[in-house]
């Protein structure tokens, strides 16, 4: 990990009276890193802080591509080359599959490598639903489209919030493999995940969160699927 793309140092965040994030330190380079933990431990809060969405009262620094993004508006952060796949996919019902991609197509840190057609090549089933509206496609296709929508911005860094939630195992595999390929192609991927299999397939290492703290760091795949760690922080076994 030569140059960190995302670098969070001593991040403390409050929402109203609740202290949501405690002294977080986290770095993501050109690799795929999983961020794991149960519901409500602050994973999404962290993602939203990275993206400048509903900025919490926060101390500490967040650097993306070397730029301090605290207090920056979300669209400017996105324009640095940050792609975001929100939880629950969040597509636009009034736009077709094709329009989702055309609207967001732009050159980014990875140049213009990702085109609308390149997304269809990655997810062929999406290519057959070009004219369907965002609310007319299956769960797997929604997930693929949400990822595709982020990819056509040609991001240098991709943040995904539980992209495999509710998907069939075979589709989970497609998505995980896609993320793995992306990170090997030089994109920094931060994957927020509860699905251990998906995380282990896609990511090289993982952070575990509990109650707003990063409580454990697994530095390789074996450590990610360690039964004791999984039992303690996720309540599951590999």
């Amino acid at each position, binding site marked *: 990990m030569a140059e960190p793309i995302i670098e969070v140092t001593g991040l403390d965040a409050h929402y109203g009276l609740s202290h949501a994030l405690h002294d977080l330190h986290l770095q993501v380079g050109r690799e795929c890193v999983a961020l794991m933990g149960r519901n409500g431990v602050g994973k999404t809060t962290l993602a939203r802080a990275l993206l400048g*969405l509903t900025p919490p009262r926060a101390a500490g620094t967040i650097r993306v591509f070397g730029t301090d993004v605290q207090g920056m508006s979300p*669209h400017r952060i996105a*324009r640095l080359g940050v792609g975001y796949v929100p939880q629950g996919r969040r597509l636009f019902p009034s*736009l077709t599959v094709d329009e989702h991609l055309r609207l*967001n197509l732009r050159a980014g840190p990875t140049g213009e490598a990702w085109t609308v057609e390149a997304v269809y090549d990655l997810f062929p089933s999406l290519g057959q639903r070009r004219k369907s509206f965002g609310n007319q496609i299956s769960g797997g296709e929604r997930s693929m489209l949400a990822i595709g929508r982020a990819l056509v911005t040609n991001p240098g860094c991709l943040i995904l919030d539980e992209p495999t939630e509710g998907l069939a195992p075979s589709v989970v595999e497609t998505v995980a493999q896609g993320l793995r390929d992306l990170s090997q192609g030089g994109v920094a991927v931060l994957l927020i995940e509860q699905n251990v299999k998906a995380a282990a397939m896609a990511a090289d290492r993982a952070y575990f969160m509990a109650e707003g703290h990063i409580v454990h760091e697994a530095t390789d795949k074996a450590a990610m699927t360690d039964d004791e760690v999984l039992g303690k922080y996720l309540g599951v076994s590999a």
Partner: protein
Amino acid sequence: MRNDTPIIIGLIAVLLLWPLVMGDYAVSQGNRAMIYALMALSFSVLAGRLGWFSLCQTSFAGISGYTVAILGVKYGWPAGAVIPTAILVAVAFAVVFGLLTVRSRKVSFLMLTLALGQMVWALSFQWVDMTGGYNGISGIRMPMVLGINFNDDRIFFALLAVVTLLMFLGVRRLYQSRFGLLLLGIQENEERMRALGHPVYLARFVAFVLAGAIAAVAGVFLVFDMGIMSPSPLGLDHAVWVLTAAVLGGYRTLWGPALGVVILVALEALVSQFTDRHTMVIGLVLLLCILLMPRGLAEVFGQFRNRKAKSATASS
């Protein structure tokens, strides 16, 4: 977008034939319908793409109308200078109003545009030295260009028809463009659009100014059509009339607002022949339409066409 080439061809045919075959009254009503169709289009760009229901689009038409009247009649400017200046003045107001409203949503946007529209209306009858108060400014006439008398209703109709058609085709292009898609996305979820790297406020501001420009063009035709500029077209009743027409026709479609205006104008002309209480009858018709077709006539037709197309493919 659905294939609307037949609609465009049909519309061109009607616009070509109307001044040739119809009587004077029908031609003058046609002029009125096109002017208000432009205002309804201006309204629908904001309502249909952004969910912004504006009550000040007629104000922009009023501002450009008053500018024509004041510069043309009081100061004797030539029409060639008056018309572009009038549109620029109205657009300047749209820029200011846009800056004031760009961060507002739904009800707060409606209330802000109501307040701004009422301010312009109040100014129009209180600034008597400039606007002539309730009496307004009369004696506004189209110029003669190359020996063509644009004060003739039928020639005026031809010019207005060309401009109206071009404006609608321009907005059609806009709706199909990435900018049009962006507006739709912003209406659905602006935060998501921000997270995808789109400057939401800038896009909304640009849309607001564009819609203002469309209304400004309508205002120029309005003042030449009436020959007099008075505060009444700036009143709330006119703003509500435009809103009603757009909702009736279907403000989320391109042609819906024009359809709504045509129906309202035709209803007013027809019903007033039979009864003095025509507004009551029209109100009743509107009530039924909105109860039965909350998404407007154009969308009902669209669904009907889709169903026919579907059953055609199913049976083949």
